[in-house]
């Protein structure tokens, strides 16, 4: 030891059990604050991405699909699945329903184990002329419109841009990869209407798919709709359900909000959990420090005898607490990140909401706040008990059992 300044550090090293116990407490504080906030933020991000991803006010699906309820997981989460209805639905809506601003069909096809992929993937075809849902998404990663025979793939499909892959024995060219959404949509393949029709034909030839007995050219899977500002979305929805036969129109928001509702439950549960963990940890920390400082009374008294002022004692206790909580909170943050990275996907699968980490800057900011809050908590609880000890006369403390 070179000077009294290194005493706090020496104390931590020489009392490992004590240090480790307090370190674990700080890790707890940090994991709950950092991990918890990040979880809530990631869920929020996930919901936002679902909403912007959909971009539609109303979704029209075949009536059977709606009653089976399978459409939700297919449209929102991109679980492989397909359903079909007559393509004339498009024209019927255009003619009979007022207040439609935009509408665009989508085509779903589930690939067999494809050349690229060891699992079944969802192929989503859209019409570049009318689409307003997928295109903005694609433009961000690709910047151009898709030509016939081109596909763009989700972030976790294991191919590289420029590769040729075979779907139903048809060769298609991978021209780009989308950003991560945190859902099964990351494993989907997107292409334009001509390409998907070609693939649907090929699938039918191989007798892998049946289009309710129709020709692949005569079917679509869903219609996405945008409602004009001067029309009520609910009115348009019921209008379609009333006038168009064999389909079910669903308000997009209601689809998401059922997810969103359960999510806000989760968020507030996490919030309560953070608060409880902090309260408990703070109490335990305060008790630990007060016990430790009680036990160290004699040591402090000796330092006082040798000429340490009250301030020097406080600063020793303070610095020990700051070092421990700093190390502990950084450790806790790393631990949370590790857990997040390892389990984000299973989390997504479990709750059906994409789990998207916020931007790096936000993560860093949340981390900084966590470290600061944990250090503050440690310093305050340590200071309270240190202050109590050093207010006593040294001569009185010295008498205490050695």
């Amino acid at each position, binding site marked *: 030891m070179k000077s*009294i300044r290194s005493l706090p550090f020496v104390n931590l090293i020489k009392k490992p059990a004590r240090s480790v116990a307090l370190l674990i407490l700080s890790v707890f504080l940090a994991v709950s604050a950092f991990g918890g906030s990040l979880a809530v933020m990631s869920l929020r991000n996930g919901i936002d991405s679902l909403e912007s991803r959909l971009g539609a006010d109303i979704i029209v699906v075949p009536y059977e699909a709606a009653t089976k309820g399978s459409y939700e997981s297919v449209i929102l989460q991109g679980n492989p699945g397909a359903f079909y209805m007559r393509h004339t639905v498009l024209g019927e809506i255009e003619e009979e329903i007022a207040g439609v601003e935009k509408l665009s069909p989508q085509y779903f096809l589930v690939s067999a184990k494809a050349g690229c992929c060891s699992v079944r993937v969802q192929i989503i075809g859209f019409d570049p002329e009318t689409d307003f849902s997928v295109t903005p998404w694609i433009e961000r990663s690709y910047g151009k419109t898709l030509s016939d025979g081109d596909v763009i793939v989700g972030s976790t499909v294991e191919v590289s841009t420029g590769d040729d892959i075979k779907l139903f024995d048809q060769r298609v060219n991978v021209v780009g990869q989308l950003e991560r959404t945190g859902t099964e949509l990351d494993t989907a393949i997107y292409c334009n209407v001509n390409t998907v029709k070609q693939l649907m034909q090929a699938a039918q030839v191989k007798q892998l798919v049946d289009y309710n007995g129709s020709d692949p050219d005569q079917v679509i899977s869903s219609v996405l709709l945008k409602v004009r500002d001067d029309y009520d979305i609910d009115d348009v929805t019921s209008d379609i359900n009333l006038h168009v036969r064999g389909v079910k129109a669903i308000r997009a928001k209601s689809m998401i909000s059922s997810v969103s509702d359960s999510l806000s439950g989760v968020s507030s549960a996490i919030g309560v959990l953070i608060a409880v963990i902090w309260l408990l940890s703070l109490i335990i920390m305060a008790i630990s420090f007060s016990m430790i400082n009680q036990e160290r009374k004699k040591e402090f008294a000796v330092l006082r005898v040798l000429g340490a002022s009250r301030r020097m004692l406080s600063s020793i206790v303070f610095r020990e607490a700051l070092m421990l909580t700093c190390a502990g909170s950084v450790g806790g943050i790393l631990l949370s990140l590790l857990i997040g990275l390892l389990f984000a996907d299973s989390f997504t699968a479990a709750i059906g909401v994409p789990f998207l980490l916020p931007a790096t800057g936000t993560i860093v900011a949340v981390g900084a706040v966590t470290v600061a809050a944990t250090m503050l908590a440690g310093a305050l609880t340590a200071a309270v008990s240190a202050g109590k000890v050093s207010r006593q006369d040294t001569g009185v403390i010295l008498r205490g059992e050695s």
Partner: protein
Amino acid sequence: MKLIATKITKKFPRQRDGANFFYALHETDFALEGGCLAVITGRSGGGKTTLLNLLGGLLQPSSGTVKADDVDLYQMDDKRLSAFRNRHIAVIPQGVSAVYTLTVTENILLPTMMYGKRTAENAQRAEELMRHLGIADLRDAMPSELSGGELRRMAIARAMMTAPGCILADEPTGDLDDENTAVVLKLLRETADAGAAVLVISHDAETLKYADRVYRMDGGSLTVHHA
């Protein structure tokens, strides 16, 4: 340095004889000048440690003043009193007074590191003191590995480190064998001869041989035994 206590008393809160407090030290005048080695003996519980703490600036008196030369100890704020004690008054507390996270050498150097850095010069002096007190082999040991007598000698070496003007030793030879008792007492005597004011609390008859003055403390009252 000259220590002068004027009309000091110390009372502690405790139920005794119907009162809520009792006097551990009745009104006392006491002076200890440089070059003098004074010894206080007396029955256990008589108030010796209480007086020593009062003189060392470690215990606020209930009344009266304690001055070191012309400085009133209890008029100083904590920061100044602490620095003053570090520089001028060395207290060897009764019982064990080691800092258990530091080695023997670091313990001995501790007073010099409070307001300064570790220097080669100080290390040299610590080494000499350890050799003199027969604990040089233990320089890198931790206090938990030391015997009671070794800890005692460590505390004595530590008190000598800053060459203080005043040494207040509470039973410094308590755990020591005859040989080490002689070494320690000689060292304290030499320090007094070099100009320091030295107060030793002891039950040891041997100590009296080195004393310039002997007091008795009983029931909180100090009496001069012989001068």
